[in-house]
């Protein structure tokens, strides 16, 4: 309140202040030893002020009253200075303030209350299981837990307290050929980072599954190099989530579409808005994509965003047609005449107190199909294809058109049956053609959440945690390359 008053007195038309405490615990292991054991905490205050239609942002670790006043005035001064270089003054969409907002990630077990011994024992036991497999030479495993406690106050009248949790257990096994001519790794790609507590670590069953991942790492050494060509691809949710992230999540960010991220993250092929909203066919009619900050267990799920907008859930693609972007309050008026939406979708986020909030991706998910297929149904219906599980190497151009995606493990599919393991597989394509080749969609039973802690965007770059749900899906006639081949 002190910050809000100080900046307002200095002439700001709008101010928000965030006091944020971030706790970040990480445990890393390698074979039989703990390589990383740390538990970090950072606290500070961030003041964002709007003067003359321009933003100012100042943050510091101090919470002393006199310093907070100094920071707030500095934010106002900075905004005033920046306003000389503003052509289109910031306009904020209205929001219903909540003076007593409270929300926390619904978790089962507080990960910070679980003993260190239990965590270390679990990881080292999983490592031992992996190393039991002949040929598995190296194994690393880790757990990461994050807690963000935020108090947001704004001159709109909101005072909101939130506590967000996220949890990510991982394991990676590496096999090395006896003649040192090859090495291959397999990670626990099916275990997603989640907006959950320690119960997610327990459910991940690293120890029980480590042997299977180790066997697959060893198997990759002798897998058959893929013959390049066009294949039907069956993409497991553990893989498809990242394809959704790159080829749907990012191009539907409105700041990109309008050129605001051109210097780093890039722009978007989905532009200009008036030519694509309600018109652009992203994929077949079975394709429906939902943006959602309310989904339980997902990483971008909140009660309110970082400018006090309640969590929203809205369609981005309906029956295969692109219908809306991701927005923050200042972006709404840019497209409201085309969308008829006059409120923010609540996509404002800052990774910590020391970074300014801006538009970040909500959970963006491909909804299950109406036929209740599971992945085996997709396989059974495929004559010649490749099954891909897990995230691998991902790269896409700055307008989100040309991509090349790899995975963790690949299996040949012949006449409806999963065959031998393949390696050196990546598929290349162009986003609209790729999504329009979607011809079979799993149902609710095959739906899973994937995600990442580290979606990078902005300058200075910030990491946004985000999840993507999807069923297994089949894409017809996709170009597959062998990553060891030239030309």
């Amino acid at each position, binding site marked *: 309140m002190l910050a809000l008053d100080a900046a307002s007195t200095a002439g700001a038309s709008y101010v928000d202040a965030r006091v944020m405490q971030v706790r970040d615990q990480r445990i890393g292991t390698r074979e039989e030893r703990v390589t990383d054991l740390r538990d970090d905490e950072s606290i500070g205050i961030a003041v964002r002020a709007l003067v003359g239609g321009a933003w100012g942002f100042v943050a510091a670790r101090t919470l002393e009253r006199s310093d907070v006043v100094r920071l707030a005035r500095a934010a106002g001064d900075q905004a005033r200075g920046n306003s000389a270089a503003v*052509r289109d003054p910031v306009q904020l969409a209205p929001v219903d303030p909540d003076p007593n907002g409270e929300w926390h990630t619904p978790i089962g077990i507080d990960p910070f209350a679980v003993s260190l011994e239990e965590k270390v024992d679990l990881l080292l036991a999983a490592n031992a299981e992996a190393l039991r497999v002949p040929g598995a030479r190296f194994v690393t495993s880790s757990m990461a837990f994050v807690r963000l406690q935020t108090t947001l106050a704004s001159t709109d009248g909101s005072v909101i307290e939130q506590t967000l949790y996220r949890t990510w257990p991982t394991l990676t096994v590496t096999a*090395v050929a006896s003649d040192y001519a090859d090495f291959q790794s397999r990670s626990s790609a099916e275990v997603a980072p989640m907006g959950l507590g320690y119960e997610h670590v327990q459910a991940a069953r690293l120890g029980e599954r480590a042997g299977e991942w180790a066997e697959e790492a060893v198997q990759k050494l002798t897998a058959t190099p893929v013959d390049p060509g066009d294949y039907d691809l069956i993409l497991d949710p553990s893989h498809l989530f990242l394809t959704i992230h790159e080829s749907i999540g990012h191009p539907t960010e409105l700041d990109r579409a309008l050129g*605001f991220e051109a210097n780093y993250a890039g*722009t978007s092929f989905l532009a200009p808005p008036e030519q694509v909203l309600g018109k652009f066919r992203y994929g077949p009619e079975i394709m429906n994509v939902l943006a959602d900050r309310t989904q339980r267990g997902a990483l971008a799920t909140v009660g309110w965003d970082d400018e006090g907008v309640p969590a929203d859930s809205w369609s981005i693609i309906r029956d295969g047609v692109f219908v809306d972007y991701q927005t923050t309050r200042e972006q709404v008026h840019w497209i409201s005449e085309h969308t008829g939406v006059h409120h923010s979708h609540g996509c404002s986020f800052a990774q910590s107190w020391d970074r300014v909030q801006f538009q970040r991706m909500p959970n963006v998910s491909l909804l299950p199909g109406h036929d209740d297929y599971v992945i085996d149904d997709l396989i059974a219906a495929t004559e010649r294809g490749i099954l891909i599980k897990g995230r691998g190497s991902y*790269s896409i151009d700055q307008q989100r058109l040309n991509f*090349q995606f790899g995975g963790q493990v690949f299996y040949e599919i012949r006449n409806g049956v999963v065959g031998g393991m393949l390696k050196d597989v990546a598929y290349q394509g162009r986003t609209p053609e790729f999504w329009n080749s979607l011809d079979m969609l799993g149902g609710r039973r095959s739906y899973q959440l994937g995600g990442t802690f580290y979606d990078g965007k902005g*300058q200075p770059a910030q990491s946004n945690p985000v999840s993507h749900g999807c069923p297994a899906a089949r894409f017809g006639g996709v170009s597959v390359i062998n*990553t060891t081949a030239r030309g």
Partner: protein
Amino acid sequence: MSILTEAEARQLCERVIAAGTADEVEVRVESGLDGNTRFAVNQITTAGAVEDTQVTLTARFGRRSASVRFNALDRAGIAAAVRKAEQLAGLAPEDPEQMPLLGPESYRMVPAFFDSTKDLDSESRAVVVKTAADAAEAAGLVGTGFLRRIARSTAVANSNGLFAYERSTLASFTTTVRTRGGDGSGWSGTTHNDWTRMTPPAELAERASRKALRSVQAVAVQPAPYTVVLEPTAVGNLVQLLAYGLSARAADEGRSAFSRPGGGNSIGDRIVDEQVTLYSDPQDPDLLERPFTDEGEPIGRTVWFENGVLRNLAYSRYWAQRQQTQSVPFGGGLKLEGGSGTALDLVSGVESGILVTRFWYIRGVDPRTMVYTGLTRDGTYLIENGQVTRAVKNLRFNQSIVEMLGNIVAMGAAERVVASESGGLGRAVVVPPMVVRDFNFTSNSDAV
């Protein structure tokens, strides 16, 4: 609040060390001012000024250890952090690879702090950015960019008497200028510790504008191996990736591009073209990096490749002891020696090829050979008979970095580049423009 002086940092280290009961303690204090201003669509969009001091404390009980980083630095905050670190360390299993703490070391200090950079406050930044944005507006183009400066100090101390301190500044300016129709895009940028040694932003904005205008009406070329002229930033985007492959341990364990078939590593082998001499040196006036590691180990000059021969890999203290050799810390930036001339000078010697401004979304594809994929971006042009003749559509590559360094035809004069795709202030990278044959492009991109 400001950057901690050596005396202030030493005092804080001593307070933290004195607050604990662990057998041994390591402390790292990082304090800094971070200021940035962004612009897009020819106007300032966001800016920021951040002050922070963070302490990383590692407590050791015998071979057990744990770390905490914190920034609540009053008496209660320090006491709480010490308690937590000691509690965690007491519960940690013994680490058979733990090395003894270093004792007092001597360091050659690096003159990396410049008032010209520290004084680049929000008001000054707004003026600089407005100049670039206004120039784009006046030219009928769309300017976007980022100006950042940091001023920081780092101190490392331990209970065995080691103390190291350095302070530095760093700035970068990058800009992407696009045509209003979105059919052309150009990029330019630079970075240095000393703001006055950086190319003026107005000149960079002009370069980016020229590139944008010249990149319209791009034609698609058949993806294939091409001779390329890589501008220094494009070289930096790729060469910096070597840092991830220079671990001696990974090589010795058989999981690196520098593993030797049959076992061991490739030190002493001719790996890349004999024109390649790559080294790290915090004292180099073009690099000006911190002269010690996070545990206070001095960083000197290390030659990684000399005339194409792999001379060194990075050895942690543990791995060096195990392999009975000297430790080789990784740090001190990366400098690839070049020749003379600019990228355009190199173009004049190329009969047929492609000129690349920078790369984007570079990701590892095959760690065995350091094959990476990614795309060209913001200025990709056809070279015909020693001339840049027209824009070509962007291209995806799948290319081994090691192989690329083996296919060098010619190199120009090395310069400091913004090597990170994000325009961030990462490791100092100094590289020349180069001509490379058989650079492996695998598909076209319609992205502009």
